């Protein structure tokens, strides 16, 4: 064995040292980024915009025509769910109004005739172990737009906020950033010169101290 020629790694292998170091460091950072952004609801959920059985335009109804949210989502102030309106609600108007192309309305008419529901696709979907109550929020000056965005500008509704636990907590910890006068809750376009000042005042006024207890949302 003494005689035999030793195997020697080629010279360039020495540069591997730096390469390995680099890979390790970059790899760690990359993983961190993936977890932080790639997997966060901000990335995965925001912008979710499923096709709906009826091409109903909030921009048209809530925006142009300026119909109040509560005309359709009647229960939002009393109940946990902001109920999706029954077909009847559509027909209230559309029995005599048939502007625009009326094919759009066919499913609605069918549903009205058959009594079978229109199966809307849920956009804002919380996990099943999360219990969100609309009435508790809209009655305390949390605007529709704060969570659902400018629905009145959306042709087809999509999700604008991550609806992640962290996102909920942000508001429960610092409600002043989002509070508005109760009468402005359904005002999509509400803005204020100095949100923080107003927010703090309203927080006082409505005596709002949101809980971050687990059982507030998880039961």
């Amino acid at each position, binding site marked *: *064995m003494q005689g*035999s020629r*030793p*195997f020697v*790694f080629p010279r360039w292998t*020495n540069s591997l040292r730096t390469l390995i170091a680099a890979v390790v460091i970059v790899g760690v950072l990359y993983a961190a980024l993936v*977890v*932080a952004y790639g*997997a*966060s*609801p*901000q990335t995965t959920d925001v912008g979710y915009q499923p096709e709906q059985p009826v091409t109903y335009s909030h921009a048209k109804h809530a925006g142009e025509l300026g119909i109040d949210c509560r005309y359709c989502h009647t229960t939002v102030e009393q109940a946990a769910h902001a109920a999706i309106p029954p077909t009847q609600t559509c027909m209230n108007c559309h029995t005599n109004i048939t502007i625009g192309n009326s094919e759009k309305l066919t499913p609605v008419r069918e549903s009205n005739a058959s009594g079978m529901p229109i199966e809307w696709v849920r956009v804002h979907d919380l996990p099943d172990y999360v219990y969100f109550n609309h009435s508790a929020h809209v009655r305390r000056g949390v605007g529709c737009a704060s969570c659902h965005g400018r629905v009145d500008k959306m042709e087809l509704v999509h999700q604008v906020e*991550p609806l*992640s*636990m*962290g*996102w909920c*907590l942000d508001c429960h910890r610092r409600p002043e950033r989002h509070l508005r006068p109760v009468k402005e809750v359904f005002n999509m376009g509400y803005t204020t010169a100095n949100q923080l000042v107003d927010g703090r005042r309203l927080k006082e006024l409505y005596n709002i101290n949101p809980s971050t207890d687990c059982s507030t949302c998880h039961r």
Partner: protein
Amino acid sequence: MTTLPAHKMLLDTTHEDPTRRAPLVLGDHDFGSVTETVCRIVERPKPPRAWYVAFAVSVSLTGVLVGLILYLFVTGVGVWGVNNPVGWGWAIVNFVFWVGIGHAGTLISAILFLFRQKWRTGINRFAEAMTIFAVICAGVWPGIHVGRAWLAYWLAPYPNQMQVWPNFRSPLVWDAVAVGTYFLVSLMFWYMGMIPDLATIRDRAVTRIRQMVYGLLALGWRGSNRQWLRYERAYLLLAALATPLVLSVHSVVSFDFAVAQLPGWHTTIFPPYFVAGAIFSGFAMVMTLAIPARQFFGLKDIITMRHLENIAKIILVTGSMVGYGYGLEFFIAWYSGNSYESFAFLNRALGPYAWAYWIMVTCNVAVPQLFWFRKCRTNVWVLLGACILVNVGMWFERFVIVVSSLSSDFLPSSWGYFSPTAVDIMMLVGSFGLFFTLFLLFLRYIPMVAMAEVKSVMPQALMEGTGHRPLGDYWGDMPHPEQRHKAVDAEARS
């Protein structure tokens, strides 16, 4: 000066004489022959048939373990015998058992190194290997024993969209951190110790593939003294860090119990007594592995009877500590006047789990007392038998602590009995399979003795007259080369 004839004194490796200790390496070895002896094992093309048999068995058992883990994941932890009130069963028992085993390695390496106990050199390498593998076996359990293993990563404090953090008050978090750290540090310690030896194998390697593989692993070690300088310093530092770590790890494991308020768990004596127990079981396992190893691979000259005897002495000491712990628990229970506490221990000794308790006491307290007798300390069969019993006993210690305490705590209405299922049993067996699989691979491919370190304690490494001394003070520890040769001749003549 003793009256024994020189050669007797020198060759009876168990002979003790404060002024003249027996040598650590027997036979007429020089650096080359030591290298040869150790490397031969790794380099021989084919291992003994026994190796293949053992390996086959171990691998299939590992398969069983893996299969059962999958079954567990799809079905639920209900496949075990655990229930209410006994929420922790064999999974945790096995975890503590294996972590305990995993202590001797680093302990031998680190603490003995710090204390300049040069007899460690013969055994530290595979003691460390044993540690790594034992910790791997231990690591399996906490992971799979949780109900939703796929969420176990929530124990890690990483920023997440829930904005929720782990609860650092929980001993389980301490546990995860401690065991994780322990594994990493042990691994580095082990690998670092191996670098020079890997280089040796690299340089002796004949086949290209071996040259490349060991070449890669040796990281281009050149044995240069400037390297040795930092290497030794780093090694010393690691040893210095690992020593408190070893002690902390099992203390933390004991917190899993001591921090709870369950009678029989909530005991301040746990940390020291767990550490002692860990060392105890760890050394027992080292012995269990060392004896066959030196037998099969002809290492009797390097892992000498003196090594085994020293281990036996440690087992005797730690065993007695553990026994003292058992006694003290009862005293405290009685002395504290806490009725729940007193019952917990009364119940251990006389309750439905008395059988387990008495197995534990017999194996852990009675058996080691054999080692008071030299005859037993120097008889491999006694050593082997005793050490296996000790391991059994230590498994039962954990069983008694975990199960008997849980089965009857505060409300008699909720007392319940735990009985293992087939899955429990097969998984324990399987974990042994995993352990031995890894260990056999180690024996096959990695020098099981730290050659460089052994060489450094050989007489040739010692320079008369120069005033230079390898690794601390050698007076009396090494017979002078001439003396040795004389003795050997004497031996030959008689």
